[in-house]
C-alpha cells in the first residue's frame, strides 16, 4: 500500500501536495518574529543572494508593521513572496541563523517573509511607482525570475520594458519547475500580477524569440536586451530504450504535473535517474501521486549526491527509496517502459567503475530522467559575438551581468547553469543596474 493514494480530484491533489511551508497566521508570525535576536551584521543577510535586511523585516513584523516588512523585502527581492516559499532556506538564511549554534531551531525566515509579502499582496499595497519615462526601451527575453526582476528594476528607473515569453505563463521555473508542495500556481501568478500592476512592464506570452530575424529586429527596437532564457529540455542520456513510452524528462514531467495536477499521467513503480534536487522533487512528486514504489537511482554513492540533504530527507519521508552505486545500461520494455537494467558500480581509487556481472533489472512502469537540462545553444548562436563558457553558459561580467555583446545582458540559469530562483532574481536586478548605466552613458 502506497503512502499516498492516487489523487482523483483537485482536492485530493491539494491534500497530497500540502504546502510544506504553509502561510503563518498572525499569532505564529508574532511569536516567531519575537524570537529573532536582531543580530549585528546578521549572518542570514549575508547568506541571502538578494541581501534582504532580514532582522529589520522581522522586527517590522513584530511591531505590527507587516507592510513595512514587505517593503523591506521587495526592495531587495522582487520575488519576495515566492522566495519565502521556494528558497532552500535550510542552506541559505535559515542555515545561517545563529540559533543553530545553540541547537535551537532557526527562525523560520522563509515563512515570515511569505507572511509579510502575502499581506501586502492581499491588501494591494502600492510599494512601487514606476520612474518617469526616460524615453528608452529594453527588451527582456524570458519572463522567469531573472527577467521579471530585471524588468521591475528598469521600470523603477523609467524604462519601457517589453518581456517576450515563449510560454503562456510568467515566472519560469517558479511555476513550471518547482515542486507543487512548495508553492501553488496561483500564488506565483498573483505575485507577478502584483508587480505588474504596480510597475507596468509588458509581457508578450506565447512569443518565442526563435529566429535570427526576430533577434535583429529586437536589437533595432531596443537599446538593450536582457537574456533570462533559462535552460532547455532534459538532457538525453543516450541509452537504449530512452524513447519508450513513459520514459520522461524530469523537467517535462514536473511541468506537466504543475499544469495538469491530478490529471497528469502517473506510474505505479517509478525509477528516477539522478540525484540532484530536481531528481528529489520528481521522486517526491511520484510518491505523492500515489506510486507504490519510487526508486531513486544514482550511479555514485549517497554521500556524493548533489541534492541538499533536506531535499533527500523530504523524499525519504514520503517513502522514496535510494538505490546507490548503480548505473543504468538499458531501459527495457515493449513499446512502454517495463524496467531499467542497471549495473552496479564502485569507487576505485576515486574512479567510478562498473562491477562485472552485476547487472540486474529493476521493474517499473515509469522512468524519470533527472539528468540535467540542456543549454539553449542554438538560440544563442543567433546573437552576434555572444560567447559561452566551456559549459555552454553565457559569459558575463559579474559586476553588471553584461555579455560579450555589449547590447546584451543576461542572468539566471542560462548564466549560472541552473541554481535557485533567488539567484536569478538577484542577477536580474544587478543586470538592470548594469543596463541603466550602459544606456545612460551611451547618451
Amino acid at each position, binding site marked *: 500500500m502506497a503512502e499516498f493514494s492516487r489523487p482523483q480530484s483537485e482536492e485530493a491533489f491539494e491534500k497530497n501536495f500540502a504546502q510544506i511551508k504553509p502561510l503563518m497566521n498572525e499569532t505564529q508570525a*508574532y*511569536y516567531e518574529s*519575537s*524570537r529573532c*535576536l*536582531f*543580530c*549585528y*551584521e546578521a*549572518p542570514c543577510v549575508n547568506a541571502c543572494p538578494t541581501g534582504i535586511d532580514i532582522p529589520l523585516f522581522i522586527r517590522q513584523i*513584530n511591531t505590527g508593521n507587516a507592510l513595512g516588512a514587505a517593503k523591506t523585502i521587495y526592495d531587495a527581492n522582487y520575488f519576495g513572496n515566492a522566495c519565502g516559499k521556494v528558497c532552500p532556506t535550510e542552506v541559505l538564511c535559515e542555515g545561517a541563523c*545563529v*540559533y*543553530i*549554534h*545553540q541547537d535551537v531551531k532557526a527562525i523560520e525566515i522563509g515563512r515570515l517573509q511569505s507572511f509579510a509579502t502575502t499581506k501586502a499582496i492581499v491588501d494591494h499595497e502600492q510599494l512601487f511607482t514606476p520612474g518617469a519615462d526616460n524615453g528608452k526601451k529594453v527588451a527582456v527575453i524570458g519572463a522567469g525570475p531573472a527577467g521579471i526582476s530585471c524588468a521591475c528594476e528598469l521600470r523603477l528607473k523609467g524604462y519601457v520594458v517589453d518581456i517576450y515569453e515563449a510560454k503562456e505563463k510568467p515566472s519560469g521555473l517558479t511555476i513550471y519547475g518547482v515542486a507543487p508542495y512548495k508553492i501553488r500556481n496561483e500564488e506565483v501568478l498573483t505575485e507577478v500580477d502584483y508587480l505588474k500592476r504596480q510597475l507596468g512592464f509588458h509581457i508578450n506570452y506565447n512569443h518565442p524569440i526563435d529566429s535570427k530575424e526576430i533577434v535583429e529586429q529586437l536589437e533595432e527596437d531596443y537599446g538593450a536586451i536582457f537574456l533570462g532564457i533559462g535552460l532547455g529540455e532534459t538532457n538525453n542520456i543516450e541509452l537504449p530504450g530512452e524513447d519508450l513510452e513513459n520514459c520522461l524528462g524530469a523537467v517535462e514531467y514536473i511541468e506537466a504535473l504543475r499544469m495538469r495536477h491530478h490529471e497528469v499521467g502517473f506510474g505505479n513503480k517509478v525509477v528516477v535517474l539522478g540525484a540532484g534536487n530536481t531528481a528529489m522533487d520528481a521522486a517526491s512528486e511520484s510518491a505523492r501521486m500515489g506510486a507504490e514504489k519510487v526508486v531513486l537511482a544514482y550511479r555514485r554513492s549517497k554521500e556524493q549526491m548533489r541534492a541538499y540533504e533536506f531535499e533527500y530527507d523530504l523524499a525519504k519521508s514520503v517513502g522514496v527509496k535510494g538505490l546507490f552505486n548503480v548505473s543504468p545500461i538499458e531501459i527495457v520494455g515493449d513499446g512502454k517502459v517495463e524496467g531499467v537494467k542497471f549495473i552496479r558500480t564502485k569507487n576505485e581509487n576515486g574512479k567510478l567503475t562498473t562491477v562485472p556481472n552485476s547487472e540486474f533489472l529493476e521493474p517499473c512502469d515509469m522512468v524519470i530522467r533527472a539528468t540535467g537540462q540542456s543549454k539553449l545553444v542554438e538560440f544563442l548562436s543567433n546573437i552576434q559575438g555572444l560567447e559561452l563558457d566551456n559549459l555552454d553558459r553565457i559569459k558575463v561580467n559579474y559586476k553588471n551581468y553584461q555579455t560579450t555583446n555589449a547590447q546584451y545582458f543576461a542572468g539566471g540559469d542560462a548564466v549560472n547553469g541552473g541554481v535557485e530562483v533567488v539567484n536569478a532574481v538577484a542577477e536580474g536586478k544587478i543586470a538592470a543596474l548594469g543596463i541603466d548605466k550602459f544606456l545612460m552613458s551611451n547618451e
Partner: protein
Amino acid sequence: MADLSINFAGIKAPNPFWLASAPPTNSGYQVMKAFDQGWGGAVWKTLGVPVVNVSSRYGGMNYRESRMVGFNNIELITDRPLKDNLKEIEEVKKHFPDHAVIASLMVESREEWHQIIRDCENAGADGLELNFGCPHGMCERGMGSAVGQEPEVLKTIVSWVKEVAQTPVIVKLTPNITDVTEPAVAAKEGNGDAISLINTIQSLMGVDLDNFVCYPNVDGASTNGGYCGPAVKPIALNMIKSCAQHPDVNLPISGIGGIENWRDAVEHILLGAGCVQVCTAVMHYGFGIIREMIPGIDRYMDEKGFKTIDEMVGKALPNTKTWENLNLKYKVVADINEDKCIQCQLCYIACEDGAHQAIGLPDEDSRVPYIIEENCVGCNLCAIVCPVEGCITMERKDDGSQSITWKERTAKGDIPTTFNDPLAGGIGHWIPEPIEALKKGKK
C-alpha cells in the same frame, strides 16, 4: 522539609504565600478555593462603602510573546455590600480556621473606621490591612494613596484604628511617593503592627494609536490606573529594602510586587519581607501557581539549610548598601566563552554603541567577538544582552586585597571636586575620536 508556617506580626498562617487584596479575593468562593489549593492567607478585597465600577477595567503590557509583563487596573474597592462580605469571611474562617484572613479596609471618618473594624473582627478576621495605597479613583476622593502620600494623615488614621483594633494592623503603603520610608515611619508612630508594600504604581498602560485613547478604554476615554505585575518587582524590592533598613520603621513587612514564583518570593523575603502577597500572577494563571511555589521554596530552604521562613528574612540586607560604601577597587572584566558563543554579535554592538567600545570583531574567518580588556569597565552590559546563558562571564581581576569606598576617599580628600579634576575616574580611559564614527557603516 522546612517549616513554612509563619507568625507575621501576630497573624499565623501555614505558609507565607498570601493573596493580595484585589480581584482574586473578591469573594468567599475565591478565597475558599485558593485555601483549598494551598495558599496560606488572603487579604480580602478592600471593604468600605461599596463603590460603582466602570466596565473595561484592566490593561496589560506585553513584551514580544510574553503577555502581561505589566498590568494595570482602574477597578475600585469592593462593590459588594459589607454584610455579604462579612458573612463570607465568617464562612471561610469556619472552614479554614488556621489560614490567615485579613480584612483590607478603606473608609473616611473615625466612626466608620471604628465600625468596620469591629464588624470585621466579629466576622473572624485575623488581621486588618489599611489600604493607603490605591492610586486610582479612590485617591480622587481623599482615600487610598491620598492618605499614603500624607504621613501625618496616615499616622492619625492608624491611631484611630488602633483605638479599637483587637487584631494586628498592617498599613499598606503606596509607592507613588518620593521616599516610602516616611509613611512607613508614620505607620510605626501611629502604632501600626506591620506594613505591606508596594501597592500599585500610578500608570497609563499605553495609547491606542488609532483613536488616541489610552487603555483601558471606557467609552472613548481612559484614566490613570495602578501598575503591577512582573515588571514592578525591582521597584518593590528596593522599597522593601528601604523600609527594612530604616532604623525608625522596625516593623514586619509583607512584600508585594511582581511575585509570580518561588524565586520572586524568596527575593522579597531575603530583602526583609516576612510574608508575601500575590495578585497579578493569579489573575494571569489562576490559584494553581501555588503548586509550584510551595515545593520550590521548600527545596530551596532545604538546600540552604533554612529551617523556618524567619531564618531567611532579610538575609540580603547586609549586602545591600548605599553607593558610597561600595568597593572602588573591585574590578571585573568580561570574558567570552568562544565555544558557547553563537556569533550574534549583540555584545559587540551593545558595547560599541551603548557602552564603552570594549569589544572588537575579528577578521573575516570568525564572527566570535573579543574583549578589549583595557577598555572594559566591567559594566556587565555584554553579559546581560548575550542570549546564551553562561557564555559571557565577568571575571574578577583585582586580587581582593584592597578596598576603598567613595566615602573613605571623601574622608581622605581623594576625590575629584572641580570640573577638570585630574582625579576623574575616566582619565586615561580610551575613547575614540568623534570623527571615527562616520567611518563606520550604517548598521
